[in-house]
């Protein structure tokens, strides 16, 4: 019996539901009772000013939060009905089902582009029938194939920043995740690379549910189907103020604070 069987699900995009999620850092509550549904095959944007717990929430969704010393949490996160915190899934398996792309591109600099794409499979010792095909598929999905196909043996660090970030997306996709979490993936990139990655997000959204943290209102508007607005008052933990379809949040939100934020009046 392998641990994959414990999650008896078919591959493909999956919905995520977070219920009453709280988070602590060293005893300080930073996130209070956050509940959010992230439907299958959609793009959800998490917006809000800095320090309101968006990234913490994102890292709770694939159990990266617990890597921080002194971090604690409560609540549940369900991946197509299976609670990732209920004990049946291991953190490592959860992270294979729910991939992550970080703010700063972090390809493995000592590995070739080819090996970078296959890194996740190598880490997990998953046998691959056709490596070349998988590399081509992942790089194509991430929109890097045409630029990288003739330099697959070059080191990952030799690419430009935008290409590195797309390599990281390809690397995450190669494992076959059902959800992809992106933590401000474009904040370190130039506008052209940003546009390229936004295009990539739109293309992969059918195969994988995307949750993206962004500070860029236009980006949230462009890429996401639904949107959640986080806010933390002074000395208080972060909460979701409002969540809903992106066009509603941006045109006609319920809460005045949401209106102010999406129109750049504070934060």
């Amino acid at each position, binding site marked *: *019996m*392998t*641990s994959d069987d414990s999650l008896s699900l078919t591959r493909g995009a999956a*919905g*995520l*539901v977070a219920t*009453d999620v*709280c988070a*602590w850092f060293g005893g300080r*509550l930073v996130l*209070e*009772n*956050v*509940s*959010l*549904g*992230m*439907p*299958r095959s959609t793009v959800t944007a998490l917006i809000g000013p800095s320090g309101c717990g968006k990234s913490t929430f994102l890292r709770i969704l694939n*159990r990266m939060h*617990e890597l921080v010393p002194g*971090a*604690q*949490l*409560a*609540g549940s996160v*369900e991946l*197509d*009905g299976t609670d990732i*915190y209920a*004990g049946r899934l*291991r*953190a*490592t398996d959860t992270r294979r089902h729910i991939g992550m792309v970080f703010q700063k591109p972090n390809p493995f600099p000592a590995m070739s582009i080819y090996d970078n794409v296959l890194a996740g499979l190598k880490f*997990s*010792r998953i046998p691959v029938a056709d490596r070349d095909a998988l590399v081509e598929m992942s790089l194509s999905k991430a929109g890097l194939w045409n630029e990288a196909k003739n330099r697959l043996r070059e080191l990952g660090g030799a690419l430009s920043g935008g290409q590195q970030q797309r390599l990281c997306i390809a690397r995450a996709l190669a494992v076959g995740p059902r959800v992809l979490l992106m933590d401000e993936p474009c904040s370190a990139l130039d506008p052209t690379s940003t546009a390229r990655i936004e295009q990539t997000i739109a293309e992969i959204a059918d195969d994988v549910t995307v949750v993206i943290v962004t500070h860029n209102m236009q980006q949230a508007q462009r890429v996401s189907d*639904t949107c*959640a607005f986080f806010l933390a008052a002074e000395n208080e933990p972060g*909460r*979701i*103020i*409002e*969540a*809903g379809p992106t066009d509603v949040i941006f045109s006609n939100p*319920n*809460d005045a604070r949401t209106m102010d934020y999406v129109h750049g009046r504070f934060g």
Partner: protein
Amino acid sequence: MTTLAPPPTTSAPVNGSPMPRRIGTPLRPRDFGLADVGILVASLFSSFLLVWVVFYQLTLLSGGFGFLVCWYGSFLTLYWTVTSQIIDRRVATDRVFSTLVITGASLVVGIVAFIVGWVTWKGATHVRANFFTKDMSHFSPADPHVLNKIGVAHAIVGTVEQVGIAAAIAIPVAVVTAVFLNEVGGRGTRLVRTVVTAMSGLPSIVAGVFIYSILVETSLSHYAGFLASLALFILILPSVTRTTEEVLRIVPGGLREASLALGASEFRTVWSVVLPTARSGMITASLLGIAIAVGETAPLFFTAFGNNNMNPNPLHGAQQALPLVLLDFVRTPQGALVNLAYATAFILLSLVLILFVLARVLGRPRTKKAVWRARLRSLTQRSKTSEIDLPKNVLMMSATSIQKESP
């Protein structure tokens, strides 16, 4: 909840009317549950039984150490096999690796604790007051009360003098070298750094042989305590230099620029800002160097040579030292001396421990910001007076050095 996720919900109370909601208890998720503890304990227990039967009953071996090694080996094998059967191979490898890493670290801690504890247990009870006041000149193995008539006072005096002189030379030289490497820079830096690195690996016995070959063999001097100091100086110089340099490097560059911008000269900056800021770290470096010098034995053969009588003069005549006298006791085992040997080991180790703990305590940074601020303030007052004396010169100096610092 299979295909369609529920519509996005808002969870927070709207407009600041706080609804009391129950917050879940904070947890740290762990992938190591009760069942996993069960596997661990079961593996430990069954491998113990297995090895016990094989080791003591079938092969009739003896020795606790061998038993532990075999037990540990079969425990790892069993643990890996069971975990890979119940969970999977990746997890099994991860668990076994964690176990190995924890064992490795515990071994080191265990050995240190064992050595310190053993020396204390064996030595502390045998320490007598006369060990600190008498030397070995009245030693006669036949005397039943010999332990009341002998001691290692001569070795204590020797060690203190030799190490003291070595430190008195080494610390200033090390600080100057470190300042040169870190603050002055220039072409020689690379060479000096390589030499320091290479010196740090110099076997201690070679340092002793070297001092012997230039001073004793050439008849410039005879065995004496200060020769030992010279050898120890060679040995602790590189480590003190390196640690000091590291400490200097973490003094923030902004502090230097601030001082230079206030019109202080480069020398003044190093003297009044950089060195005082790095003082606690430099004390740590020096004390650790001294702690190591106290325990060095090999270079003393050829320099201090050793002696049974008190010789307080480090400049003339053979001198004893604590590690050297201890080695003598160990190499010429005489019943009466065993207790004295343990006591000497205890005294030596205590000395090293005290220096070590002192180094840690004094090296602990105080509230650094406050210290720096006070330094800068005192500097402003001082440099205001010097500004009147030679403003142009100082300004030019600071300008050039700022250029040098910012690439």
